[in-house]
């Protein structure tokens, strides 16, 4: 290296010449793990992202800092990505009519009109 680095760390290290070829091998890839984060006991764990790691234990070590170094955390789960069965988005159509299934919703069950009509048609009785 011609120029001296302004960073004392690199003044100490021996930085390689630029034309020295450095290639990461494909085998340097390791698998990924999905991270689930629980903010507070009583709430759901939420998916927050992935870490690259050789096994679940190291994934946990990494997840703690990548996804829980700020804010509140009470718990973490690690799941190897290949263990997650993800639905295909092409099958999202199976949910198309779900919002229309009003029979499962409270909203279509309206009673007020019937009650008022009934009360209006009652013979005149004293209200005690």
């Amino acid at each position, binding site marked *: 290296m011609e120029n001296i680095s302004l960073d*004392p760390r690199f003044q100490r290290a021996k930085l390689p010449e630029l034309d020295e070829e450095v290639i990461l091998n494909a085998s340097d890839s390791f698998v990924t793990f999905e991270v689930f984060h629980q903010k507070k006991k009583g709430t759901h764990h939420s998916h927050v992202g992935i870490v690259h790691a050789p096994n679940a234990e190291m994934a946990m070590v*990494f997840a*703690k*800092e990548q996804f829980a*170094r700020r804010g509140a955390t009470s718990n973490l789960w690690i799941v190897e990505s290949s263990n997650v069965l993800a639905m295909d988005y092409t099958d999202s159509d199976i949910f198309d009519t779900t919002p229309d299934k009003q029979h499962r919703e409270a909203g279509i069950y309206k009673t007020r009109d019937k009650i008022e009509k009934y009360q209006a048609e009652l013979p005149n009785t004293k209200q005690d």
Partner: protein
Amino acid sequence: MSELNNAKAELINYLADSLLILGHRNGEWTGIGPVIEEDIAFGSMAQDKVGQARQLYELLHSDFGYSEPDTFAFTRTAEQFKCPQLVELPIGDYAFSLMRHFLFDQADLIRFEMLSSSSFVQLNQFANKFKGEIKYHVFHANTWIKQLSKATDESKIMLQTALDALWPYAFAMFEPGPNDALLIENGVFDGEKALYDKWFETISTLLNTYQLNIPNISDETIGRGGRYGYHTEYLQPLLTEMTEVFTIDPSAEW
């Protein structure tokens, strides 16, 4: 200040200096670690150590009349520092830094466990406060050493080489403190010998599990003297660097 108070202050000073210098060294890996996720983790732990040091310096200031943390930490020279020589050694390769982290943090865990029943209330409060952080540091270190010790021939050799170089300095870390008897007598801290015994039992068991050889120490004076101001050639350059900007004007607000 009474003799006992001096002893307490010396202990806190020793702890704070150790944590600051190790945190500083480990912080040198920030942004240039070997694996992205590990870079992040190692950086966090370095901050934890610096943060713990700061709190201990704050205690020295509030309860023992020492100057305030920035001044005390950023204006002393090497012979005024009490850290063990182990922590001031340059970062070396990643095996060296990991192995040092493994050896030191196990001692740190046990030391603070011992301090959690200290008669010195503030120290036992700190012990409880730092407990969670140190637990993670040890989890991190042990997981890594375990992983590397059974991975490749190269990783095993890297670890053993680092252990061979560090072992004398780790052993020297437990050199007797100047006031151990007084601290033990008053229930402040059970002393370096007791700490060493517990540490050695845990560490040697772990190293055996990881199939790493515990080196012989040919010269027990190697690495000693840090607590008494005798340091390696590496500490002053570290301090000069660490304080480079601060000393442009130590009275200014940065």
